[in-house]
C-alpha cells in the first residue's frame, strides 16, 4: 500500500489541467485567472455591476452572466413609481436580463400590480427549465391577478404566498391547480388547504405558514397525519384560544411532526394568568423534550413575570440541536450549536449576559431588540471588546 507515495500521486495531479495560472500574465493581473475561476468570482457581483462590468474584457463578457442561477426580481426592479408602474428603464432592464442571464433556474418574485404580472409572464415565457418558482402576492393586490396567475401557471409554481384572507372564495377553484407545490405555502386560512371533507389540497409541502384559531381544530388532525414525516418548516400564529386545554391539544398535535426542523410559534397574548401558567408549564416539562429535533425555533409569547421567562429559557436550552433561537428573554445557558440568537425584551443587557453570549462558540449573529449587531465570533479578544462597546451603545 505504501508503494503509492505522495510523490507519485502529485505527479498524477500535475497532469491534470491547471486552472488559472498561466505564464504569460503578470501575477497581479486578473487576466491570469481561467474562465472557471473567473465565473465563480464574478458570481458575487451585484446585479448592476454585472451589466456595468460586462465591457471590461472578452473574458468578463463570457463569464459575468453564466454562473447566475437565482433571479430575485425585487432586487432588480426596485425602481417603480408611486403608482406601482414599472418605468421604461425597468422594462429595458428586464429585457437585458432575459437576454443575457440564460442560466436562470430559480425565480423569486413579489407580485403587487398588473405590471408585475406582466413581468412574471415574460419570465415564464423566457425561461423554460425552471426548478424553483416562488411567487409572493403582496397585501392589497387585486384578487383577479392572483386568480389569473394561479389558473395559468398554478401547476408549475413550487412556492406561493397569499395575502391575508378575504380572497378564498374567488380562489377556491384556481387553488386546486396548485398541486405541484413543494416549497412554501403561506395563507391565513386553513380552509384553503384542508377541504370540507378533510382532504388536503397540497400534499408535498415542506414549508407552511398559517394562522390557527379554535375553529381550525378539526382541520389540524388530517394535516398533521399527512405531514408528520415530511414537513420541515412550520410557522404558526395562534389566535387567542379559550382554554389552556385547547393550547395543549394543539401543541400535542404539533409535537407529532417529527420531520420539523424549523418551528415558529407566535401567540396572541394570553390574558388569563392561569392559562398562561399552564401553557408555560407544559412547554417546559413536556414540549421541549418532544421537540429536541428542532434546529431553528422561534417562540413569541407575551410573559408578564420573570419566573416565566427564565423557566422558558431554561427549558429551551434542553433543545441541544438548536442553531437559531428567536426568543424573548434572559440568556443564561450554554447552547452549543447556536449561530444566531435574537432576543426581544426590555431587559437591560447586564455584563453577565454579555459574558454568557460570548461563550457561545458558533454565534455569528446577535440581535437585541431592534438593534442588529453582527457579532463575529473569533478567538482574539479584540472583537469581544468591540462587541461589548456595541452593547453599551444599545443600552
Amino acid at each position, binding site marked *: 500500500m505504501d508503494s503509492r507515495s505522495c510523490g507519485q500521486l502529485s505527479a498524477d495531479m500535475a497532469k491534470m489541467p491547471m486552472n488559472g495560472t498561466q505564464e504569460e500574465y503578470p501575477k497581479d493581473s486578473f487576466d491570469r485567472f481561467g474562465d472557471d475561476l473567473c465565473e465563480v468570482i464574478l458570481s458575487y457581483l451585484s446585479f448592476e455591476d454585472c451589466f456595468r462590468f460586462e465591457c471590461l474584457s472578452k473574458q468578463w463578457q463570457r463569464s459575468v452572466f453564466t454562473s447566475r442561477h437565482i433571479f430575485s426580481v425585487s432586487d432588480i426592479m426596485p425602481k417603480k413609481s408611486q403608482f406601482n408602474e414599472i418605468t421604461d428603464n425597468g422594462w429595458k432592464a428586464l429585457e437585458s436580463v432575459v437576454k443575457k442571464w440564460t442560466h436562470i433556474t430559480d425565480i423569486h418574485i413579489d407580485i403587487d400590480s398588473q405590471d408585475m404580472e406582466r413581468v412574471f409572464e415574460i419570465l415564464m415565457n423566457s425561461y423554460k427549465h425552471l426548478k424553483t418558482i416562488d411567487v409572493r402576492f403582496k397585501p392589497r393586490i387585486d384578487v383577479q391577478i392572483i386568480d389569473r396567475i394561479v389558473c395559468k401557471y398554478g401547476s408549475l409554481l413550487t412556492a406561493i404566498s397569499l395575502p391575508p384572507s378575504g380572497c378564498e372564495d374567488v380562489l377556491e377553484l384556481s387553488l386546486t391547480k396548485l398541486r405541484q407545490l413543494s416549497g412554501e405555502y403561506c395563507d391565513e386560512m386553513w380552509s384553503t388547504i384542508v377541504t370540507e371533507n378533510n382532504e388536503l389540497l397540497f400534499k408535498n409541502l415542506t414549508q407552511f405558514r398559517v394562522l390557527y384559531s379554535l375553529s381550525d381544530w378539526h382541520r389540524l388532525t388530517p394535516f398533521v397525519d399527512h405531514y408528520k414525516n415530511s414537513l420541515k418548516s412550520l410557522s404558526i400564529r395562534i389566535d387567542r384560544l379559550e382554554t389552556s386545554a385547547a393550547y395543549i391539544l394543539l401543541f400535542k398535535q404539533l409535537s407529532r411532526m417529527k420531520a420539523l426542523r424549523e418551528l415558529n410559534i407566535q401567540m396572541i397574548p394570553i390574558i388569563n394568568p392561569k392559562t398562561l401558567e399552564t401553557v408555560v408549564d407544559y412547554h417546559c416539562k413536556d414540549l421541549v423534550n*418532544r421537540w429536541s429535533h428542532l434546529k431553528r425555533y422561534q417562540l413569541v409569547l407575551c410573559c408578564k413575570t420573570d419566573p416565566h421567562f427564565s423557566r422558558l429559557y431554561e427549558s429551551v436550552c434542553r433543545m441541544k*440541536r438548536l442553531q437559531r433561537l428567536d426568543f424573548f428573554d434572559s440568556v443564561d445557558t450554554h447552547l452549543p450549536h447556536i449561530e444566531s440568537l435574537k432576543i426581544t425584551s426590555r431587559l437591560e443587557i447586564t455584563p453577565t449576559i454579555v459574558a454568557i453570549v460570548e461563550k457561545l462558540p458558533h454565534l455569528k449573529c446577535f440581535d437585541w431588540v431592534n438593534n442588529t449587531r453582527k457579532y463575529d465570533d473569533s478567538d482574539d479578544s479584540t472583537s469581544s471588546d468591540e462587541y461589548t462597546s456595541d452593547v453599551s451603545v444599545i443600552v
Partner: protein
Amino acid sequence: MNGEYSLDTTEGMAASGDPPTNNAVDDYDAEEALERQREEENKIKIKLKSFEGGVYECGLTAAKMSVMVANMLDALQETDLTKIATREPIPLQNDAVTNKALEKIVEWVDHHWDDPPIDPDFDDEKERRNEELSHWDKQFIDIADQGELFDIIAAANFMDIKGLVEVGAKHICNKIKGKSCTEVREMLKIHNDFTPEEEAAIHKENEWIYAKD
C-alpha cells in the same frame, strides 16, 4: 393546574402515545460523535509542501477542507491515520501555491476547520451568497500585494477549498463595487481586448443602468 390539562391528555390523542423523537436523538448523537472525531483527527498534523519547496504543518481535518488534499489522502488508503503524520510532505504542484500563499491558506483552514457544515435541512444558498464576510475573514483577506492575493485565490481554487475561494471572490467584488470600468481595469490590471466599437455597442445595450429615474 396539573389537573387542568391532564383532563385532556387522555382524550383520544395518538400524540401522547408517540415515543419522544428517538430518531432525532440518534441523529444528534451521531453528529456529536462525528464532531468529536473531527476534533481528534485535527490533532494529527500533516505536512504540505508549496511549489517553492516550503513545508507547512496543518491539522488533518483542516487540511481536508481542500478537496484535492482530501482526495489524495483517500487515495493513500491509510487506515492508521497517525502514520500520515510521519509521511513525506504532500507537494502542491501549481505555481500559485507559493510559500506565502500556502502559509496564508494553512492559517485560513486552521481557523475554519470547525465551521458547522452546510445544513441540508435548510436551503439557504441565497442567504449565504449575500452574507457579509466575517470580521476575521475581512482582516485575513485584506492583503495589500495584489499578486499575493491572486496567488491565494488561484491556489485555493487549485486546492479546491470552496470557502476560501468564496472569501476571495467576495473581497474582490466588494472592492470594485460601484467603481467605473476604467478604474476597475486599472485596479485589477485587466487588458481591454475589445475594439472601441465593440465596447460602445455593449455600453449602449446596458445604457439603462446609468439612467436615473
